[in-house]
């Protein structure tokens, strides 16, 4: 049974955290995941690093470059995660760009995810229509939820289409930007959050991009089911290492 829908039914606002696998050190993956769960995080996005992360700002780019330098590969990540379900029960999602998955083999990749107990995938550069026509059947065969993005520029018609082929949540990009580049939400974002909330979509929305602290987390979750933090957590890892994850999570949820 996929853990994402169950989690989404919980009567609370959800905090999801992204980190880049292989950063800061190559063998931090399981420690980070376990510490995040212990600290009260609801869902984790495990970033599969890519050499050319088009949708990411400088923080996640730098962590990806370092992770690859540290020797992270798709196979190594799967090996690190193989026993993760013995200790971790919250939903786990792999977020990565399409080319490394394509080279691994999309079906082999999905199969491996199922064996490990991965619940979903976020692939920013796999377009909705290509997924729908070519890969949907494979994802479903292995019980994986594919999460799609919408932005302030996404048309109503397209949002409805994305809602119709989603079966978990919709990843709502807070503003027209790459990751990690916004500081605080203004009137424009609040209007957009309300507009989407009023659409009463089938899938709950989780907001990402530009969420870095308690204030932005609260603003986002006023209108959505949850929020995702990436760059701010990577910065925390850079400065404080993996031992103080609890204090970071507490500062968001306090």
């Amino acid at each position: 049974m996929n853990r994402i829908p169950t989690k989404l039914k919980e009567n609370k606002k959800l905090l999801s955290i992204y980190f880049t696998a292989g950063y800061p050190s190559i063998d931090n993956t399981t420690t980070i995941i376990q510490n995040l769960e212990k600290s009260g995080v609801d869902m984790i996005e495990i970033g599969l690093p890519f050499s050319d992360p088009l949708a990411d700002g400088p923080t996640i780019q730098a962590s990806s470059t370092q992770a690859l330098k540290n020797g992270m590969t798709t196979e190594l990540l799967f090996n690190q995660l193989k026993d993760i379900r013995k200790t971790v029960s919250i939903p786990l999602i792999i977020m990565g760009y399409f080319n490394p998955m394509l080279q691994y083999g999309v079906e082999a990749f999905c199969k491996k995810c199922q064996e490990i107990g991965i619940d979903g995938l976020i692939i920013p550069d796999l377009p909705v229509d290509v997924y729908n026509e070519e890969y949907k059947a494979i994802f479903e065969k292995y019980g994986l939820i594919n999460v799609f993005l919408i932005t302030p520029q996404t048309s109503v018609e397209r949002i409805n289409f994305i809602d119709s082929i989603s079966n978990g949540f919709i990843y709502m990009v807070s503003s027209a930007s790459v990751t990690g580049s916004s500081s605080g939400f203004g009137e424009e974002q609040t209007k957009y959050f309300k507009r989407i909330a009023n659409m009463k979509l089938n899938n709950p929305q989780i907001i990402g991009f530009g969420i870095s602290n308690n204030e932005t987390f609260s603003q986002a979750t006023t209108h959505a089911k949850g929020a995702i933090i990436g760059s701010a957590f990577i910065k925390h890892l850079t400065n404080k290492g993996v031992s103080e994850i609890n204090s970071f999570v507490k500062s968001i949820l306090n």
Partner: protein
Amino acid sequence: MNYNINEKGYYGEFGGAYIPEMLYPNVEELRQNYLKVMAEPEFQKEFNQLLKDYVGRPSPLYFAKRLSKKYNTKIYLKREDLNHTGAHKINNTIGQILMAKRLGKHRIIAETGAGQHGVATATVCALMGLECIVYMGEIDIARQAPNVARMKMLGASVIPALSGSRTLKDATNEAIRDWINNPVDTHYIIGSVVGPHPYPDMVARFQAVVSEEIQWQLQEHEGKTKPDYVVACVGGGSNAAGAYYHFLEDTEVKLIAVEAAGLGVDSGESAATSVLGKEGIIHGSKTLLMQTNDGQITEPYSISAGLDYPGVGPMHAHLYKTGRAEFIAITDDQAMQAGLELCKLEGIIPAIESSHALAVFKQKKFQPEDVVVLSLSGRGDKDLQNYIDYFKF
């Protein structure tokens, strides 16, 4: 077999638009409008007028008599090197700046490797009075100081790409990120037949003026519109796409694509994408690209800054896969010698990119009656320091 793009934006199995959702509205707006805008008589009129009066088209189709004699075949040089700014690149930037204006954009971004496309973009932005931001790898900025100065003189801001390997592919990533951050007022002028659909097709159509001219110019010289061979160098592939365009479906015209082998195809320092590349996704396009087994994009090498792109346009991936074009890899040494030979035999100093194409005559035997049209994509002024360093003049 069809060698043009299909209605879904693919050449055979290559192409498409593998882009993050954040880019979808920009790319979709372009996709819905590009053919319509290009078909407008007013657009055509303005485009052609600028190509004539500003770029200096038609570029001559020159019968290279002494070169032909040496290789015992009939060699014509399509003189794109004589265009304003010194290469074929301007054909595309003129077209795209007019497109940007029609779409109501007033901020222009571009990527550049060696700086040729950056200069061609800065030029048309100055011409139209539009803001111009050029992303260039930090390493390339250091290597290509004269072109950086040109862009600045033309009023462009040159922003260093500090991520990844800090060269062309990273400059392209930065331009794409800029476009994500500025989705409404900005047009991205891509410099080659790469990127998400409709870019490969749009750029090919703007460059198609090259093969269109070859047809009627050859009629004047030879009494026929079809050459036996068209030879062009390929980095991303816009020069070759333009030279091939009107001959794509006519298999009597043989196409030769010349890639940069760098220090040798198997040396680890090469940019011969067709041989070394595997199918994958780069900059929003499914095509052949150089990558690790794990799908990480690798850094190519060539002495020619215009040919060291780790991918190739989807049109060329299709031409390679179907065998429609013959791909030949030329090393740094072979290219430099061929460039110097053209200087001595014809009094033309070619760009090192074009020198790669010229090196084909030592690698492949043509018949005396063969008509071979070679696209001389650019002039060698920009490469003077490389020639000096190589030959120790």
